[in-house]
């Protein structure tokens, strides 16, 4: 592929995630410090460019979409299109038909699975939960409830189980709701009845994390044991 073709393709990938202006800005701002110009790009430069694009683009896009951008860029470098289904994200994006297509992708409300290993993951989980809720048509308070509950569960996973997985399932029928399942492989919650009774205070927090989720949820279920903990809850919109 020639230099212009590479440049156009990079732009097209970026435009799937941000406006055309932002994409051009990000790309130019990435190439300049690398002493590369749009008219002399070579395929060998791609790995360097892709590495630099990741931090450069983060201010312009939803954090939950970062893995998908990384996958698509990697797909460009290896010549294999990213396998969309394997990438957790907010929805499928139609393949841009023309390089000028600048509109952000229309987000289809579909389930998301998030791996929680760090605080940044927890942060993107609550943002994703809120976005899903908003796309389902939830009002401010409901979106706030969902995001806060997801935040509590992600924090518990990080503090007590070293991480976990959070599934977000938007449902439209029979009722509009967001169902959340949080799973971890930690040692379980030893005194879950006490925690949920409201008479417990943890050393670090206020002991209200899990109880708070229960109080926020319209349906709540927790299963815990030495092999791990699963919390499932629904917030009806």
């Amino acid at each position, binding site marked *: 592929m020639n230099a212009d073709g590479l440049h156009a393709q990079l732009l097209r990938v970026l435009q799937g995630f941000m406006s055309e202006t932002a994409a051009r800005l990000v790309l130019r701002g990435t190439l300049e410090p690398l002493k590369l110009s749009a008219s002399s790009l070579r395929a060998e430069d791609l790995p360097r460019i892709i590495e630099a694009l990741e931090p450069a683009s983060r201010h312009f896009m939803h954090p939950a979409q970062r893995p998908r951008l990384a996958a698509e860029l990697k797909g460009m470098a290896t010549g294999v299109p990213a396998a969309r289904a394997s990438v957790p994200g907010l929805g499928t994006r139609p393949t841009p038909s023309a390089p000028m297509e600048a509109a952000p992708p229309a987000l289809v409300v579909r389930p998301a699975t998030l791996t929680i290993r760090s605080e940044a993951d927890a942060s993107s989980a609550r943002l994703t939960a809120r976005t899903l809720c908003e796309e389902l048509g939830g009002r401010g308070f409901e*979106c706030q409830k969902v995001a806060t509950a997801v935040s509590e569960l992600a924090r518990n996973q990080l503090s007590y189980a070293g991480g976990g997985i959070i599934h977000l399932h938007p449902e439209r029928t029979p009722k509009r709701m967001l169902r959340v399942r949080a799973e971890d492989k930690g040692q379980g919650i030893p005194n879950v009845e006490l925690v949920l009774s409201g008479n417990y205070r943890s050393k670090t927090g*206020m002991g209200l994390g899990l109880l708070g989720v229960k*109080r926020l949820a319209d349906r709540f279920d927790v299963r815990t044991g030495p092999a791990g903990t699963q919390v499932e809850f629904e917030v009806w919109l």
Partner: protein
Amino acid sequence: MSYPDENRPTGPSRETSRIPIIPLWGQLIVPLQGDITDAQAAQLCSDVLRDIQRSGARGMVVDISGLWLVDSHLCAVLARLANAARLMGTRTVLSGMGADVALTLQSMGIQLEGVETALGLEEGLAMLGVQVTGARTAEAERAAAQQLADEMLGLTTPAPMKTSA
């Protein structure tokens, strides 16, 4: 453009970047924005308490109007900060909590006991004894509106206008 560290991707990440603490009229103002990570919250506590000691601030307003999410952990941190500041003799007012955040915390049963709250930054500063002087206070505006209404009804004579052509 928010694009500072293209050459060093290992620069200060959002997780560790510091929250500003603004000294103003003998008080400290701490504006919280966006999404506070646990690391930032812990750093904030020690920074604020250090600044209180250095500046001798009598009061502090923590403005959370820019936060889109407040969970039990952040509440615990804020309550701990307020209590530690109180032990040092500094009053803390939490201002700017949004309606959805307030409803959510209330549903969760979080009370934020021992923390004074105010509707906004202005009210928060007023609680700490900062008085606004000048034309733009609420009372001054009300008085001006009253004056204008009186003039339009002909109850008072308007202030003489300059008529230099």
